[in-house]
C-alpha cells in the first residue's frame, strides 16, 4: 500500500498534504493549550497576557490589614469606584473587589469566599451591574480555573471541561494565534507596564487629571453590542446565581445595594436599534424590584446619565463610565445610604 502511494506522485502529494495538516494542527493546538494566552486552561506554564485580577483581588483581600466592612462587587466598570471616598462618607472600611468580566456567578462565589474562607462578614455589598451582565456568555475561564471560586458554583468536572473547551472553540482564531507568540515574547522579554494596577484597597490606580476621549464610546460601540447581541431575555441561569447571592447575603445579615450602571447615551441610541437593550433593561429593573421586595435590597437605577446628574459623554469607552461619572454615582448612593 505504502509502496503504491509512494510510486504515484499524486497520491504521495495527497498523503503528504493530510500528514502536514495533522502535524500543523497538533502543533498549533498544543501551543494554544500550553501557552494558554487567555488563561483558559489554567495550566499557568506561561503568564497570560490578559488581566487575571480575580487572583490578585483575592490576594489583596487576604492581605488586608483591617477587615473591610463595605465591599464593592462588579465588573471592570466599577474598578474606579473609590474605596477611600466611601470610607470618608459612611465611615466603613471599604474594599473594591470588582473583577474583569464579572457576572452574577462571580458575585456569588466571591461573596462566599469572603465570608466563608476569609471569615469577613461585611456590613454591605455594593454591586455594580447592568442587563448585559445577565447575558449568555460562558462562565469566565478565570472563575472556573480558580479552585477557591469554583467550589462555590457547584460545577462538576465534566461541565468544567466542556465549558473550557467551548470557550476555547469560541476564542481560537487568528488573534489567539497571534497572542500565543505575544505571550511567549512577553514571557521571555518581560511584560510591558500593566495597563491596570490596583491599590491595597482594591481600587484602581489611575491619573485623575486624565479625561476620556469624547469619541471613545462610539469607537468601542461593539463592546456594548457584544454584551446584548442575540439576547432576548436575561439569562435564567444568571438570575439564579444572583438570587443565590442575595439569599446568602440575607442569611449573613449583609445589606446589598445594587447599582444599575449606565452605558454611553450615544451608544444606547445605536444599540437600541440593533439589540433588545431597552426590553432587557426594563426586565432587569422589574426583576430587581421583585428581589428588593423579597430580600430587602436597595436599588440605585443609574441606567442613564440623567438619573444621577452625570456627564453625558464622559465615558472611558462605550460601557465604562469615567471616574467623574463613577464619583457622581457614588455620592448619590452614599447620600441615600447615610440617610
Amino acid at each position, binding site marked *: 500500500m505504502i509502496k503504491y502511494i509512494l510510486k*504515484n*506522485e*499524486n*497520491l*504521495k*502529494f*495527497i498523503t*503528504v*498534504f*493530510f*500528514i*502536514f*495538516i495533522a*502535524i*500543523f*494542527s497538533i502543533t*498549533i493546538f498544543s501551543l494554544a493549550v500550553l501557552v494558554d494566552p487567555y488563561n483558559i486552561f489554567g495550566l499557568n506554564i506561561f503568564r497570560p497576557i490578559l488581566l487575571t485580577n480575580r487572583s490578585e483581588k483575592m490576594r489583596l483581600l487576604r492581605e488586608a490589614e483591617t477587615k473591610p466592612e463595605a465591599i464593592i462587587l462588579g465588573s471592570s466598570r466599577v474598578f474606579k469606584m473609590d474605596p477611600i471616598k466611601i470610607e470618608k462618607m459612611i465611615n466603613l472600611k471599604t474594599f473594591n473587589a470588582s473583577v474583569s468580566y464579572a457576572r452574577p456567578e462571580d458575585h456569588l462565589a466571591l461573596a462566599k469566599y469572603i465570608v466563608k474562607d476569609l471569615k469577613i462578614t461585611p456590613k454591605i455589598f455594593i454591586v455594580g451591574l447592568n442587563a448585559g451582565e445577565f447575558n449568555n456568555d460562558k462562565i469566565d475561564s478565570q472563575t472556573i480555573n480558580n479552585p477557591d471560586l469554583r467550589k462555590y458554583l457547584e460545577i462538576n468536572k465534566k461541565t468544567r471541561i466542556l465549558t473550557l473547551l467551548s470557550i476555547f*472553540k469560541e476564542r*481560537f*482564531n*487568528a*488573534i*489567539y*494565534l497571534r497572542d500565543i507568540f505575544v505571550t511567549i515574547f512577553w514571557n521571555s522579554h518581560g511584560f510591558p507596564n500593566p495597563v491596570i494596577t490596583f491599590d491595597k484597597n482594591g481600587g484602581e490606580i489611575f491619573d485623575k487629571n486624565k479625561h476620556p476621549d469624547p469619541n471613545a464610546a462610539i*469607537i468601542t460601540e461593539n463592546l456594548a453590542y457584544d454584551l446584548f447581541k442575540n439576547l432576548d431575555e436575561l439569562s435564567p441561569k444568571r438570575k439564579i446565581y444572583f438570587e443565590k447571592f442575595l439569599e446568602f447575603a440575607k442569611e449573613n445579615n449583609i445589606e446589598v445595594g445594587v447599582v444599575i450602571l449606565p452605558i454611553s447615551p450615544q451608544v444606547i441610541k445605536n444599540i437600541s436599534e440593533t439589540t433588545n437593550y431597552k426590553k432587557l433593561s426594563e426586565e432587569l429593573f422589574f426583576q430587581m424590584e421583585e428581589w428588593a421586595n423579597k430580600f430587602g435590597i436597595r436599588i440605585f437605577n443609574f441606567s442613564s446619565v440623567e438619573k444621577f446628574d452625570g456627564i453625558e459623554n464622559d465615558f472611558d469607552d462605550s460601557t465604562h463610565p469615567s471616574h467623574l461619572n463613577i464619583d457622581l454615582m457614588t455620592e448619590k448612593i452614599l447620600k441615600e445610604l447615610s440617610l
Partner: protein
Amino acid sequence: MIFNSYIFIFLFLPLTLFGFWFLRSKNSRYLWITAASFIFYGYWNYKFIYLLLLSTAISFFSAKIIIKSNSQKKKKLFLILSIICNLILLGFFKYFNFGVSAFQNIFDLFRWNVSLSTLNLIIPVGISFYTFQSISYAIDVYRGNVPAINNFLKFSAYTSFFPKLTAGPIARVKDMNSDLENINRICEPTLIRTGISIFVIGLFKKVIIADSIANLVNPLWADYASLGFASAWIAVLGYTYQLYFDFSGYSDMAIGLGRMLGFNLPQNFNSPYKAVNISDFWQRWHITLSSWLRDYLYIPLGGSRRGVSQTYINLFITMLLGGLWHGANWTFVIWGAYNGALLAAYRAYRIYYDKLPLLFQRFNTFLLVAVGWTFFRSPNFSVAANLLKKMFNFKMIIEPVKIDYLNISLLLLFCILATNFLPNTFEWRYSTKPRFAAALAMMAVLALIFMNYKQNVFLYYQF
C-alpha cells in the same frame, strides 16, 4: 451552506466526495450530485428548493419540446416561454419591490394619489445564477449550439451542481456536457490533487486576504461621513481588493470542488487588475457573466454590426442590464451605466488610447474600475457621491479619522504585488512536490483558524 464553513469542509464535502466516487453508474452519480446540491442549497433555506426545481423543470421540458418540434413557430414559442418563466422567477423575487418603489416614486413625483405596497420577500440565494444558466440552455438548444439533454437526472445535476450553484461560475451546458457525459469515470488522483490545491488557494484568498481587508475597511464604509481624502481612498481601494479576493477566492473554491468531482468549470477571473483598458478588464473579470451578456444580450441586440452609434447604445444597454443583474438598487444601475459609458468611450477613442504607455493604461484602468466600485459598494447614491467628493477633494488631506495605517498599508501593498505580479489560478503550475503539499497544508490550517473569527458570507452571494 457556504464553502468557508466547518460543516461544509469537515462533513458535507468528505461525505459528498466519498459517495460520489463510491457509486459507479452514471444515473446514481447524477442523483447523488443532485441530492447533495439540494442539501447544500436547502441548508440555507429548504423552502426555496422548489424554485430551483421549477427553473430546472421549465428549461428541461421546454428544450425537449424545442428539439422535437418541426415547427419553427412552436420552437420559438417554447423558447420564449422558457425565458419568460425564468425571468418571472428572477424578476418577482429580486426586482418586484424595487419596481414597486420606482413606480411609487414616479406617482409621488406627479402627486398622484396612488399607494403601492411592497412584499416581504427574501431573495433566494443564487437565483440570478441558476436562472441565467437555464435561460442560456434553452437558447443554446434553440440555436442548435448544444444537444438537448434527455435525462432529467443529468440535467438537474447540471443546473444544481453545488460548486457553481450559488455564485457561479455561470457554466453553460457546453462547458460541462462532456464531463457530465463521462461522469462515471474512475477517480483519478490528479483530479483530487489539483482540486485540493485550487480549493485551498481559494479558501486562503477568501478567509485570510478578503476577510482581513474587510475587517479594516468595513468600519470606514460604516463611518463614511467622517472620512477624509486618504481614508476615502483607502476605503475604496480596500474594497476594490476585497471584492477581487472574495469573488475570485470563491470561484477558485468552486473550480477546485468541481475538479475533485471530475468537472472542469470555466475560468472566471484572469488577473483583472492587470487589464490595460476597460474592454480588457471585462474580458478578465467575472468572465462567465461577461461572455453570457455578450452572447445572449449584446450580440442579439446587434453587437457591433449596426453602425457605430448603435454599437455604443448596445454596449451601454448590455452593461446597464448587467449592473441591474447584480442587484435591485439604483447604485448597480449607475455602476452598469458607468461601465457601459466607459466601454463606449474606449471604443470611440481606442486608436489614441492604445498608443499611451502601457503602465499608464494599466494604472488608469485600475483607477476607473476602483471608482466604479464606489457605486457598487455604496448602499445608495448619496453615500457614493459623498465618498467620491472626498476622494477628489485635495483640501481634506488632514485626516479626521484614526486609521490603522501600518496594517492597511501592508495589506494593500501585498494586494498590489499579488494582483500585478503573481500568476492567477489558471496560470499557476500545481507542483506535485511534497514541499508544495506542506505549504498548502499550512495555508489550509491557517485558513481554518481564521475562519473561526466569523464565517463571512461571500460578497457575490447577495447577487
